[in-house]
């Protein structure tokens, strides 16, 4: 079984390597390698679930006296669940891409990058120590960079890729410092050893600062405020990439990591920071989603908001109990539950959006769609299921996982519970808006009028994903709490009624006229990007400018030219003595002789 575990990780790397080494010449072979690798990983993951309780295996990567970094695989309940999500959703998205990317001239490169991404993501999932996690953390960052900037000739895509990578790097900075702090405290980076040490020595309780710094890594990858700005821009990548990376996997990595190292932050002040950052991100992103017009951007903000939910509930913690099947803690269990259901239905929504975009000739503005219901029935129905799941309509998967979050929030913090309910209302509101505008009513553009259902290579993955989006919730049901049940059903009902009242038969968005500045703030994403742009232009650039000037003038100029100048001056002065006149030389010679004599005799 150890070999199988290694193969899960390595197959996508091998595929990516082969494509890079030459298989890229043939589109079919590249796609074959890539899809073969990820499906094999998926099948092997399933066999892990069936056959293996826990498994640990490692090889050494770097060992110096006093420092030991391993590449080790840790297979337990948490990683098995995540493995299935990543490779399962990943396989379907690979297949969907066959259709979506069919005509792209860089088809092979696309599949090479996808494989590289799957490899990096599986590394995070399987990691049994902090350093390995950091290594794959960075690799996920770069493969996401490559995929967002896949259409690199388009300036907006190239800029978005750069922004995503750098924003993630800011988070990684905190993450690495956090790892250093943990290492110096416990002399190890291995999760299992850390867990033992934490339990053994209460006195060595980790400082909240270290916990918070580690959370910074999650803040970058899971796009939590204030490092959320890269995710909406990342929609510049191909839509299947948005589905895979920016809905189901990479952005979930932060939440997964928090669950993995929850024992390190539990009980410190970092917990509260995590909870509140998550809650506020959820609220803010939901507000932003209300006023977006680009179908992918609405989904992107929705992803931010749902990730905020997950992070919030991790931070809330909750009780330890064995009936929380995955992690044994209420908060992290709810987070992983929601992560799983969200991966399915959000990936499906993104693929549905991809199908719509494909049919409408890459039109992404929902106000230029409309009436797609009759023309794209499969996409319509699956999108409806996804919307229901996301809104938390009872009996759909999202309903159960969202309820699990609300239960924990209700017990641990009433303010955050209220925020979570408001977010639920907003979620239903913006999803209903999206749905009504894009799929019902009359077609508002020629493209929408002539849209045709996508080919089956794209609709079949949608239909397959609809199954877990419907039923994934039944695997982890708990007894319902009447108050929570009431709150969540009411949230859906109100959100739906508001949105229906406003957007039924609307040709353009009526909200900006009604709410003015507030709607504009939501549309402009509360000016975060402008603020960062200002900081970069005024602080970072000026700092660089000052150092550059200092480098050029003070050090290079004054010092070097000073040495140069004084040497030359000395040369010029000495040249005055060299007149070429024999008598002058004779005079100086005699004068020197006299001086030496005087000195010697006195």
């Amino acid at each position, binding site marked *: 079984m150890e070999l199988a575990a290694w193969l899960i990780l390595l197959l996508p790397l091998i595929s990516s390597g082969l494509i890079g080494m030459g298989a890229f010449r043939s589109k079919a072979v590249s796609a074959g390698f890539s899809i073969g690798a990820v499906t094999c990983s998926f099948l092997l993951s399933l066999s892990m679930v069936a056959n293996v309780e826990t498994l640990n295996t490692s090889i050494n990567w770097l060992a*110096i*006296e006093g420092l030991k970094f391993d590449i080790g695989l840790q297979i337990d309940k948490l990683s098995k669940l995540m493995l299935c999500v990543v490779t399962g959703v990943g396989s379907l998205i690979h297949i969907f891409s066959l259709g979506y990317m069919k005509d792209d001239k860089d088809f092979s490169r696309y599949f090479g990058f996808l494989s590289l991404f799957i490899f990096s993501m599986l590394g995070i999932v399987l990691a049994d120590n902090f350093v390995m996690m950091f290594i794959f953390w960075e690799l996920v960052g770069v493969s996401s960079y490559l995929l967002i900037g896949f259409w690199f000739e388009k*300036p907006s895509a*190239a800029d978005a890729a*750069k922004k995503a990578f750098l924003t993630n*790097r800011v988070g990684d900075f905190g993450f690495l410092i956090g790892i250093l702090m943990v290492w*110096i405290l416990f002399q190890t980076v291995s999760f299992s050893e850390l867990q033992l040490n934490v339990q053994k020595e209460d006195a060595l309780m980790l400082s909240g600062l270290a916990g918070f710094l580690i959370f910074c890594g999650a803040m970058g990858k899971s796009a939590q405020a204030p490092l959320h700005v890269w995710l909406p821009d990342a929609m510049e990548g191909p839509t299947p990439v948005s589905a895979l990376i920016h809905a189901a996997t990479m952005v979930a990595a932060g939440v997964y990591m928090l669950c993995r190292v929850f024992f390190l932050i539990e009980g410190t002040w970092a917990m509260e920071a995590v909870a509140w950052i998550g809650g506020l991100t959820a609220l803010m992103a939901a507000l932003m989603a209300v006023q977006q017009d680009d179908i992918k951007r609405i989904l992107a903000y929705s992803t931010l908001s749902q990730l905020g939910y997950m992070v919030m509930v991790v931070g809330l913690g909750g009780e330890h109990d064995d009936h929380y099947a995955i992690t044994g803690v209420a908060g992290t269990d709810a987070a992983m539950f929601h992560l799983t259901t969200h991966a399915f239905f959000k990936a499906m929504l993104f693929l549905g959006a991809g199908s719509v975009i494909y049919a409408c000739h890459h039109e992404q503005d929902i106000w230029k769609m409309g009436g797609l219901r009759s023309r794209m029935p499969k996409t319509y129905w699956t999108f409806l299921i996804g919307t229901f799941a996301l809104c938390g309509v009872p009996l759909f998967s999202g309903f159960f996982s969202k309820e699990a979050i609300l239960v924990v929030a209700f017990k641990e913090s009433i303010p955050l519970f209220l925020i979570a309910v408001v977010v639920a209302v907003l979620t239903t509101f913006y999803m209903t808006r999206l749905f009504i505008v894009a799929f019902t009513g009359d077609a508002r553009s020629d493209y929408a009028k002539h849209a045709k259902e996508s080919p089956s290579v794209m609709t079949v993955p949608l239909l397959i994903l609809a199954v877990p989006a419907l039923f994934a919730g039944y695997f982890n049901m708990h007894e319902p709490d009447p108050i929570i049940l009431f709150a969540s059903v009411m949230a859906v009902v109100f959100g739906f009624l508001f949105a229906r009242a406003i957007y039924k038969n609307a040709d353009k968005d009526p909200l900006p006229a009604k709410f003015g500045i507030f709607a504009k703030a939501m549309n402009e994403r509360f000016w975060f990007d402008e603020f960062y742009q200002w900081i970069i232009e005024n602080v970072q650039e000026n700092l*660089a400018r000052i150092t*550059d000037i200092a*480098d050029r003038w003070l050090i290079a100029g004054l010092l070097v030219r000073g040495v140069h100048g004084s040497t030359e001056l000395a040369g010029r002065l000495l040249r005055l003595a060299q007149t070429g006149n024999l008598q002058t030389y004779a005079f100086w010679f005699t004068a020197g002789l006299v001086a030496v004599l005087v000195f010697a005799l006195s």
Partner: protein
Amino acid sequence: MNYLFFIVMLPLLASMIVSFIPGSQAKAIRNVTLGASGLSAILSLVAFCTFQVDGGLQFETKWIWVESLGLNFHLGADGINIGIIFMGAVVAFASVCCAGDITHRVKEFYVLLNIMIGGVLGAFASMDLFFFYFFHELALVPTFIMIGVWGRGQNRNYAAYKITLYLSLGALLALIGLIGVYVQADADSFSIPDLINKVKEQSIDESAQKWIFPLLMFGFGILVSLWPFHTWAPLGYSAAPTATAMLHAGVLKKFGLYGLIRIAIPMAPVGAQYWLGILAWLAMANLLFCGLVAVRQKDLNLLIGNSSVAHMGFIFLGIASMNIIGLTGAVLVMIAHGLLAALAFGLSGHFYQQNSSLDMTQMGGLLRKMPLAGSAFLMAMMAGCGLPGFANFAGELTIFFAAWAAGYKLITVIAVWSALVVGGLYMLRAIRNILHGPQGGTWKNSKDSSPLVTTAFGLLLALLLVFGFAPNLLTKGIEIEVKKIVYLVKPDIDEAKHLDVVTR
């Protein structure tokens, strides 16, 4: 088998052969040089693979030269320099591959290039203080001439002049320091191992160590562009011909660091402890200051030059940490950076050859135009901003841990910021400006790299990846030798490991 002798002598032999070939036979000249450096690279690979990790000094050649002075021609390799020599020989071969852009006075250029290669490799292989210094000067003098005669741009005379001034000053300070060591140790031999044994038994007077060490630290430091003596580097490299920049930035520059580790610290351990705190702060300045300067550059070569200076900060920081992890990481980064710097300057040389300009604001979309060179450039930039999988990451990570353990917490935080964020910023800007976006106007006719040049890039990248995936290939040997040095400074074992600084 004394591989080292052949590795060092083959290029020098080639320079003699080339000097007898008529200048019109450019092809023959190039082939002889390629053959010699290729053969020496293959031999270095064999040496690297057959090297016994715990076997001490190996592949020795020892000829007595002036017995009364204790002057010997002594080559040998241990865990520290075997990797550097291997890297150096590969970089030398790659630089010859990339030297096809030289079209006038070809013969003279290749004579000098061969001498430079022989000098570089000889300096790292020498176990005798005299030849250690002699080979370095043998490599340095051709550098100045090559920049002055075959360099680019209007600034080349100023650059050649500046680089000469700086490097001569550095070499001079180091020489004074070395003489100081020789005199103070009351030595009767120039052999480096003998000298170390001698000071181990009877160390140099502490007050003398305190002035010898800074001489060596700043002397060697200037050679490695230690802040604030770094401004020669970007300017010099941007004016230098491709092959020269690759060899100097990649290999020759590491001489100063090698000297610090191999000679300065063992000879003056007390002086080292006294001064290393200052070195740590200067290392931080290298990283942050030069990183920020790199952000502002519009010329690709100035960007690579400044980033290369910034990367020296990692190595200085590793040395300043003065624990086993840190010194091992420092040598690891030396090797990784050598490969990377050669790759980056090779690529920029290829770009320059296409359009006689490296103004990044005028470039764009080159990934489509030159997929091979473009992909290599992408990977080089990624390696440069510390992406795992490349050897640089392994070394940099090790150094962060070492510096943190040594108690340089603030410096480490700044270093991590400079590496991850500032480094990412300028590397990604370079990719964005050069490879991504729509194609730049005057770059329409640019061609991808030729098979030979692509091989060179591939070779350098392959080694970066091999050492990135399996850094243990290098660190096992380095660690053994480094341990001896750290114990000279910190005789207490636990302190050397530096794992007693747990803050509870």
